[in-house]
């Protein structure tokens, strides 16, 4: 059966029909954060290449990254980084077999969100 024929079948309810839960929302956020991180590595490489190209290039690039728009982009990337890292640890714990009970998975999800907020506050305000 071709892909086109297969796609004419009805889909089982998802997205708009399921009530968003801690588990499902955090899961898709993990993926979105991952994509954002991957694209954002361009920023890291940009700074590295600029630094390797000499002082003039470095200063020009850093002027952008220190501007409000640049800082906003870095801030967004950092939130994605902290979230993806903390939720990633939650994933790795799942891989060892723990935290599968739904109540514990949800509690860990809350812990991940709190950790993300704390790390962001630390990195941007306290450090």
């Amino acid at each position, binding site marked *: 059966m071709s*892909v086109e024929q297969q796609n004419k079948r009805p889909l089982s309810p998802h997205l708009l029909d399921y009530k968003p839960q801690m588990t499902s929302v955090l899961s898709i956020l993990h993926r979105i954060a991952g994509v954002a991180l991957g694209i954002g590595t361009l920023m890291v490489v940009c700074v590295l290449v600029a630094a*390797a190209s000499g002082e003039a290039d470095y200063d020009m690039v850093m002027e952008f990254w220190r501007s409000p728009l640049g800082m906003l982009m870095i801030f967004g990337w950092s939130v994605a980084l902290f979230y993806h890292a903390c939720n990633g640890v939650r994933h790795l714990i799942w891989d060892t077999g723990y935290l599968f009970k739904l109540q514990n998975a949800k509690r860990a999800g809350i812990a991940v969100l709190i950790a993300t907020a704390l790390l962001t506050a630390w990195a941007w305000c306290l450090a």
Partner: protein
Amino acid sequence: MKLKWEKDGIKTPLARAKGLGASGHAVGHWMNQRVSAVANIPLTIWFVLSFVSLRGADHDAFTGWLSEPVNTVLAILFIISVFYHAVLGFQVITEDYIHKEWYKIAKLIGQKLFFFALGVAAIVSILKISFAG
């Protein structure tokens, strides 16, 4: 030691030639994703701490810091581990959502080339700073 056609069990030769059935690569992919994830944890901690400490650094401060051998090595390890992890992750996402065969393959190849090129750019820059600076 099994000969090539003996490993395929119940597959017909045509199915084997067409490459149908399970790829057998998923477990390796899954494990590599986890291994790079575990490596990413200390490397990311180092990266974040370094980033915070280098706030406001001018060119000399930044290149001086990166030239220290420990930082050079950790930076390169960070780049390799993160970009490898990213390629694997992007691969899974592409396979999940893209179903037009030609587009999926183009995206998969493009992603690998993109991150590989970015990785080389980053590593070359790090080495250049480290050796020349």
